[in-house]
């Protein structure tokens, strides 16, 4: 069953069309990743789904019905930038938000789930980045929502805190919640998301599971060669294949037959010092689809 359906969603601000006829479905219990460069229309799309922004046209259906005002009872949101009321402890903040909903989860359990026990009575302004994100996630979960929106939840966190947060999201998924995640980290998307929706210039440019999308766009693996180990390389590479690109200090060759390509490279006399073979990632796909690097 689709917990959320979006049909021909449009949002325009004066003469700018931020979201241009976007349609997609979200089956219950999955983690959907919304990817796209800055300014692609991700946040606007998400804010329309959250009921914060009114769509110019199009339909948003929750649980098969048109979004109504009480949708907020079943939705949990973690904003990217948000402040909390001053002078309140972690527990008081959770209590405050819990009171807004007709039903809420047991706060002690929530505190435990989000690993907030050690500073439940600390002023919320005195939390570290990772602790703060976990509190914001706890706030998003306080009403036991069926759909949880996470907007760039790990931006600015250290690798350890990110890993912790991912584990937390996995736990939430295990509870059967549907998660909508936006992120600029492709490893995060690959790790957490069952389905992806890549948006650019207000339109959906690709959709599917990470593996499906990758195999759709990349047939094979990438062979990387350091640029400075070869001279006049483009001439030689042109002989070999058309399927190469330059990124930073490297040449990248996409191939489905590694052995053949490697022996061909040797035949052309290209030194293989510093050569690397790796599988294409979402980041490669992103570059290919949107033409510009994601900013973290």
């Amino acid at each position, binding site marked *: 069953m689709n917990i959320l359906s979006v049909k021909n969603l449009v949002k325009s601000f004066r003469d700018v069309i931020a979201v241009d006829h976007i349609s997609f479905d979200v089956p219950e219990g999955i983690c959907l990743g919304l990817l796209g460069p800055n300014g692609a229309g991700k946040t606007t799309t998400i804010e329309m789904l959250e009921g914060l922004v009114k769509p110019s046209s199009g339909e948003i259906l929750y649980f098969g019905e048109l979004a109504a005002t009480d949708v907020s009872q079943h939705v949990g949101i973690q*904003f990217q*930038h*948000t402040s909390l*009321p*001053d002078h309140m402890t972690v527990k008081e903040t959770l209590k*405050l938000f819990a*009171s*807004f909903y007709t039903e809420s989860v047991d706060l002690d359990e929530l505190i435990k789930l989000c690993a907030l026990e050690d500073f439940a009575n600390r002023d919320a302004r005195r939390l570290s980045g990772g602790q703060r994100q976990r509190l914001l996630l706890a706030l998003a979960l306080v009403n036991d929502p069926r759909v949880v929106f996470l907007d760039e939840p790990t931006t600015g966190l250290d690798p350890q805190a990110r890993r912790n947060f991912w584990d937390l999201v996995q736990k939430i998924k295990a509870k059967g919640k549907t998660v909508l995640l936006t992120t600029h980290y492709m490893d995060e998307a690959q790790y957490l998301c069952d389905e992806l929706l890549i948006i650019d210039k207000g339109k959906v440019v690709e959709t599917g599971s990470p593996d499906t999308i990758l195999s759709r766009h990349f047939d094979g693996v990438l062979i990387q060669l350091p640029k400075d180990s070869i001279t006049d390389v483009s001439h030689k590479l042109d002989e070999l294949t058309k399927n190469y690109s330059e990124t930073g200090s490297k040449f990248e060759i996409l191939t489905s037959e590694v052995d053949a390509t490697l022996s061909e490279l040797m035949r052309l006399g290209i030194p293989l010092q510093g050569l690397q073979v790796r599988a294409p990632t979402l980041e490669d796909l992103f570059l290919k689809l949107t033409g510009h690097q994601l900013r973290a």
Partner: protein
Amino acid sequence: MFKRYFAVFTARNREFFRDRSSFIWNIFFPFLLLFLFAFIFGNSQDMFKVGVLGDEDAYLSKPQIFELRHIQFIPYEDQDSAVKKLQQHQIDMLLQLDKRVYWVNRSSPKGYMTEQLLMSKDSEYQRREVDGRAVRYIDFVLPGILGMNIMFSCLFGVGYIIVRYRKNGVLKRLKATPLNAVEFLSAHISSRLIIVVCVMFILFFGAHWIFDTLMFGSYLSFFAVLILGAMTMISMSLLIACRTRSEELTGGLLNVASWPMMALSGVWFSLEGAPEALQTFAYMLPLTHIVEASRAISIEGATFFSQADHLIFLTVMLVLFSGIGAWLFSWDSDHR
């Protein structure tokens, strides 16, 4: 609905009491002012003031006391109002030239001195006695300081917080919950109102205890005027904060609103005798009405309904400001 309202209400109260610096400042500053004025104006002039009643002809055969220096003679038309001034120790003695009688306030030491002077010069004057406590500057200024404190507390305590919440995204976060604007705003308004009333009680009864300030009218009327005034100030603050997300702009607007009132609303000095244009302007400011009505009740013993013109003005402002403010209110003011 009530649960959500009450949660925000409690949270806001907590925020106020935990913000130690502003909490202490809210109570400490007005007391500081009162002490300052009690000190400055406590014993200022030592000249005697004598009120004089009588036809113009009566001045032709002035009593000899008029020849003494360091006595200010103030003519009055109306005996009742002159006697009232005497009762409040604003004059030390009152003379009726035609009938050759004088009134003196039994509890006034300066009245005793002027009486001795009169007797030594014009012993044929007949004695009349009144009683009444002195109205000191501190009695006069207390309603002004209460009004000013209410004004600052309401203007900055509601509008500024809302703009800050809007700017840093707290309002947006709250909008994403089932909490609605009416619940949110009414919680903030009532939290501030309760705080203002508590501070008002502390100030009023504190001053009463330390300086033995006067209250000729009813306490209920006095506090009712101040509470109505607080509500008007809060609605003004809401109007200022209804859309903007700039703290600087809001701070500026709040200062533009509050400083003219601080200077011109008769907090420190009576508006009687001020230029006409200034008075006209002052009567457009809500604080003027709060101060005049509460002052009339406390030091003149006026009734609540005798202050109807002030009260009607405040009520009209309250309805107007809160109506427009609620209509224009926006959570995040991105005009989406």
